[in-house]
């Protein structure tokens, strides 16, 4: 057996140490079968959400079968075809000889309604669109007849019965592209919420697992707590980020291909912003979750130590729902200024065009400043708590115990 290699000088830079930790996190996590399964299941959900509106949304015009009885039937049938309710409705007419036949066909469901003189025959009741259609057609025929009796005909009659429709002059017209963008960004933000929560918790449980398996003692004999924590957060975060990009990409391609949505202009930029806000949000929450892990020593305790963080992000989720409903509203505006909620609420406000550049700048600065504070605090708490593998640790003790942050 030849002699094994010997590490000469330990030329491991801080960056290399962090890189080794990142690589281990990525390798070990992607190797787990549960990772492949959860990614696959989420992709299926993404596909379902993306494709279903395309399949369900466009079910063609509504079709009505209308019977007309007797001599007044043909002109009425003609009027029924002419009336335009401004909706996607198709009417088929049938001229019948007897009222009894009309009644039988309506009873059997072959006809939706039948008109006999001044009576409409229905099975149960006359529904809205059909009533408007029938009444308008009837009024049209009667007006024509009255005009003809009064000697008005031709273009004059048409000008009376069929005046040009009113033009719409919208002061604040809906912006279809912006609405589509907002809708898609809102979907994106819900996934961001899931990823921040899921992968933030993964940071916490990874911290606790290293403590409960005691491997942390060997790790911290080799590298500093700050290097281990940085590698862990970046490694776990990179995986969450990559998944998010995958979900967005697959969802978008599927949605466009299935006809659920047109690709609104500017969507790429809006989704890139969502991803950017994910990175900020993850930095903030993963640092909090790392603290929750550092003060627990068993996975069971993590439920307790992480519950304040769970409440915090859940509250942010409520802000998100409010922003999705009313991006210009007070709730959206106020919650977007709170650094822990901004990463969820701000992208929706921005996609809706409801966030002035100054506010975006101020909120971004607030969030970045919070990240700096929280990450430093987390590094300190982690340094103090990582080696305490027994029992719950008080935050204050962990903070005081940080020997080599």
């Amino acid at each position, binding site marked *: 057996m030849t002699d094994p290699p010997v*590490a000469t000088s*330990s030329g491991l830079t801080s960056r290399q*140490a962090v890189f080794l930790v990142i690589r281990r996190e990525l390798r070990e996590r992607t190797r787990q079968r549960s990772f492949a399964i959860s990614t696959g299941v989420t992709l299926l959900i993404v596909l379902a959400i993306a494709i279903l509106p395309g399949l369900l949304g466009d079910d063609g015009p509504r079709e009505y079968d209308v019977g007309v009885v007797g001599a007044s039937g043909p002109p009425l049938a003609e009027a029924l075809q002419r009336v335009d309710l401004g909706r996607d409705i198709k009417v088929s007419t049938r001229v019948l000889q007897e009222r009894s036949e009309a009644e039988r066909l309506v009873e059997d469901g072959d006809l939706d309604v039948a008109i006999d003189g001044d009576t409409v025959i229905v099975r149960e009741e006359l529904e809205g669109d059909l009533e408007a259609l029938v009444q308008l057609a009837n009024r049209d025929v009667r007006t024509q007849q009255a005009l003809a009796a009064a000697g008005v005909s031709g273009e004059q009659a048409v000008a009376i019965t069929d005046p040009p429709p009113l033009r719409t002059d919208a002061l604040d017209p809906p912006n279809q592209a912006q609405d589509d963008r907002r809708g898609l960004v809102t979907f994106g933000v819900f996934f961001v919420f899931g990823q921040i929560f899921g992968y933030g918790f993964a940071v916490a449980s990874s911290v606790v697992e290293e403590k409960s398996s*005691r491997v942390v003692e060997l790790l911290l004999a080799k590298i500093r707590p700050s290097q281990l924590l940085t590698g862990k957060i970046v490694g776990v975060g990179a995986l969450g980020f990559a998944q998010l990009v995958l979900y967005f990409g697959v969802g978008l391609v599927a949605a466009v291909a299935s006809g659920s949505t047109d690709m609104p202009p500017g969507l790429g930029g809006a989704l890139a912003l969502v991803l950017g806000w994910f990175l900020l949000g993850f930095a903030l929450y993963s640092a909090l979750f790392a603290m929750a892990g550092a003060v627990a020593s068993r996975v069971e305790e993590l439920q307790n130590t992480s519950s304040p963080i769970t409440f915090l992000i859940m509250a942010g989720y409520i802000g998100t729902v409010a922003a999705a409903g009313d991006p210009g509203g007070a709730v959206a505006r106020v919650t977007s200024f709170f650094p822990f909620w901004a990463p969820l609420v701000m992208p929706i406000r921005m996609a809706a065009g409801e966030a002035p550049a100054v506010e975006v700048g101020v909120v971004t600065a607030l969030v970045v400043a919070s990240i700096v504070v929280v990450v430093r605090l987390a590094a300190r708490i982690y340094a103090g708590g990582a080696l305490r593998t027994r029992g719950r640790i008080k935050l204050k003790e962990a903070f005081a115990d940080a020997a080599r942050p």
Partner: protein
Amino acid sequence: MLELQDVTRRYGDVVALDGVSFAVQHGEMRGLVGRNGAGKTTAMRIVLGLAEPDAGQVRLNGSAVDDAARRRIGYMPEERGLYPKMRVLDQLDFFGQLSGLTAADAKAAAKHWVERLGVADRAEDRLDELSLGNQQRVQLAAALVHGPDLLVLDEPFSGLDPVGVDVLSAVLREEAARGAAVVFSSHQLELVEQLCDGVTILDKGKVVADGGIKELRMRHGGRRLRIRVQGAAHDWAQGLAGVSAVHPDDGEVVLELADDADTQQVLDAARSAGRVEAFMPMSPSLAELFREVVES
């Protein structure tokens, strides 16, 4: 060379280490012994930078232990721990690189050590699929993988079967022969006596004996004498000045002497009792020595 100088560490009101000093030379194997709570683990963790001393210094080859030097120490913590779900070879590769090996060297070293420690056939398995004994071998490999010049092992023999003890003993001898300074704690004093050149005995955070095992035994010897006197009555030594106890033993007697005993007076008494055939100061075993210094 590893040196601890007047290292003191308190945890609240408990003094875990109280002015502890000892040194381990390259090529030396040193046992760190003491009762539970004597301060062995604290001393080792301070060497590894896992705890800070309140006072005193740790030096490695003459200078304070910085990150780079610390990374080069091979360490086996008291509470074993590696990644349970990680494969054996990947794990050793990871710790090899964290200790400063290049990627290629770490791979080669990981292979070398799984073979040397007899777990090569489990190299691709997850750690938690191995028996506890094999997990312990992997733990040892993680301490050795980068060819450290200082090995700090906390209770490395605990939990090993006799074959494991032999493998570990052989490996530690090889490491010391390679020039590594080896320090380990153990309650198995016979093992320490067999393996180690020097020993440091801690009691209640203080060093109560420190030095080469031979020298220590000699120094604490002379407190007992084995004497064979032909033709003497079996109780010839009873009541001699300075003799605190007499144990007859197969025609000989073993005398325990008081601190102020004069061995020459004892010899005179023996000669007047009969023909002195043997007169040997007895050096105590490490276990006896331990009891003496710790319990006194």
